[in-house]
């Protein structure tokens, strides 16, 4: 009799604990992946545009004057 009561009392607790979901693992992983992809994208972009970004452009005479005129 005592055993039965004990089982009836414990069963709902066991069922409730089985329903608990651990969500934190699911949220950490995508953030890590996103950062990883961004680093890779940045590296690829730098590889391609490095020479272009470094190429100096001499300002044409009169550009600043023209700008002032427009204002």
């Amino acid at each position, binding site marked *: 009799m005592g055993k039965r009561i004990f089982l009836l009392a414990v069963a709902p607790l066991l069922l409730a604990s089985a329903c608990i979901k651990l969500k934190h693992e699911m949220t950490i992983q995508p953030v890590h992946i996103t950062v990883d992809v*961004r680093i890779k994208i940045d590296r690829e972009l730098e590889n*391609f545009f490095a020479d*272009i970004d470094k190429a100096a*452009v001499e300002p044409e005479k009169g550009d600043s004057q023209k700008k002032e005129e427009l204002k």
Partner: protein
Amino acid sequence: MKRTLKITAALLGGVFLLAAAVQAESAELKERFLQRKPLLEKLKTLEWIGETNLGFLAFRSDTGQSEENAQAVQAENEDRKTVYMEIAVKLNTSAQEVGKRRAVQIAALAAVGHWLQDADGNWYQKKQPGPQ
């Protein structure tokens, strides 16, 4: 045996030719970017065009939209799109994400006075960095 060797050689040759073609296309793209750079920098200095938050150029108003300028901006954006798409395919991501990352790099490299778009799409002018 000879046939297998021939097939292997043909495949290797094909791969080599493909790699050479990709390399040549990349070099052509870079050359076009460099050729357009002086004109585009001029248009940025004149405040006619700015850099969007998606890594593309845009006219800020109707001012300066001559045929030559409009063509240069369009060609630049098309070539940028090609680069973004190539990187996106390589890294299994979207071209838009690549463009957004490029916009961040462009903003960091931009000259003082050039117009840029923030993450919300608002235009702002790059200011002189303050004292540290």
